[in-house]
């Protein structure tokens, strides 16, 4: 029986594909690699690697402890590399205006009830629930997160730096 090896990527070991243009502009495909992007990012910089109108996918280099974040809608975080804790607080007072879209960075840890935390590693997806404050913590080698969210004030766009632009 054949033995199959599933290929994952990581910060230390990834291989990029690419766009082989026949009759098009490679920029139309916004081609990037999340490990490549995270390898050049500041810790917890929320770099957009995908945008579908108001929605974005952000790549975060998970290194050390992040600021506290919150959003007025659900978000989802998929760990692509490393081991990451996500700590949650239910704020005593709303920390995000109702209807605000995208992640906001809180000035400090909000007062409220500690909800607990999840410890997740490659392949695990965590819910970042609406209205909850959360913080990422990475204690080991840097990891990579992919966050499904809406474009917001702290979304970083640097498409020309991260995407394939030449045929």
């Amino acid at each position, binding site marked *: 029986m054949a033995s199959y090896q599933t290929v994952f990527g990581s910060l230390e070991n990834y291989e990029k594909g690419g766009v082989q243009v026949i009759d098009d502009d490679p920029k139309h495909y*916004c081609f990037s690699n999340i490990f490549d992007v995270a390898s050049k990012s500041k810790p917890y910089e929320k770099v957009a690697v995908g945008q579908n109108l108001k929605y974005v996918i952000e790549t975060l280099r998970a290194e050390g402890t992040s600021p506290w974040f919150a959003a007025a809608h659900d978000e989802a975080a998929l760990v692509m590399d490393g081991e990451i804790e996500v700590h949650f607080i239910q704020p005593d007072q709303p920390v995000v205006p109702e209807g605000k879209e995208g992640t906001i960075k809180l000035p400090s840890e909000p007062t409220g009830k500690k909800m607990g935390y999840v410890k997740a590693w490659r392949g695990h997806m965590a819910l970042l629930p609406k209205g909850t404050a959360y913080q990422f913590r990475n204690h080991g080698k840097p990891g990579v997160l992919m966050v499904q969210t809406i474009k917001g004030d702290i979304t970083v766009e640097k498409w020309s730096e991260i995407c394939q632009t030449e045929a």
Partner: protein
Amino acid sequence: MSTVQAAPKSSQPSNNLGYQTFSIGQFKFQRDEYFAHILYPGNRHIMKVDSFLRALMRDVGWGFFYGTVNFDNVFGTVNHYGTVEMFVGLFNEAYRKTNRHYVETFQSADLRKTFEAMLDDWTNQGFDPYAAPDETGTVFGVKHGSNTKALKRERMVAKRMVGLPGDLGYRTDENGYPVNRQFTDVPQDKPEIHAEPGFEGQVHAFNMLGYVSRSDVTWNPSVVSCVKDSQFCATTEEEALPITHGNDRVEWFIQATDEIIWDVDDGKTGRPRAKVTMKAGDVAAMPADIRHKGYSPKRSILIVWENNDDRLPQMYAKGELPPYPVEF
């Protein structure tokens, strides 16, 4: 070109191979031991029956999907979300140039009923059109049995995230979803969840790649997480996408494991525009005006990222939105 409203007609008597003939509007579908024959006024199109049934399975399973489902470079359907166009040559440059294309419009429910009946009758015992070719039996020959159970799989759609209370459940050995033979090295461990009392069910995480590694179908995205209309549709891919998907909006691919090579052609003419090779961690957009077909040499995990806003097809069709997601 002809565009008409038509209701399905009853199946014709079986042919001498045991297969029924189906008709709707002016289209008639017949199968023999090897081929599906698509007859329309004045002409005939032919496809290998295994390819036809694999494409038909996706069209039925996805509810005609987003945009165009090209069974090959001639025949297919266009979803107008309530009605469906079934066409020959509509997106083929030569057919259009010579005015040999043919189109009819049906109520989605009517066409779906015809397609479901045809899929059920033409699928023989041991053949699963959702499975990778190496995992299933043959569909050729005279009619022998059926495989209705395999055709009735429901598309799995999480409302917020897989595993939350009241949401889509996990796949396990016990409920009939063993890890696929090509994903035995995908870890099945679980994230640690340390919820304080009163917050159980709110502090949530699950092994998404483990969940997807247990998918028993190929090229059939299932929604694992949602942020309003933003849907992560995770899927396992092996061999070739049985259709060529014509976009009616921008969609995105995130290659989670392994590799897929995409042929990208112009949506209207079929002229080649690019080849996109995606390896683990790669992210790429598929513009709103293209069609694409993927090739996955080993079973791989792909996240198809969709915007489910139902206003988008009209907006792209009218040119109110550019076909490309980002200008830079």
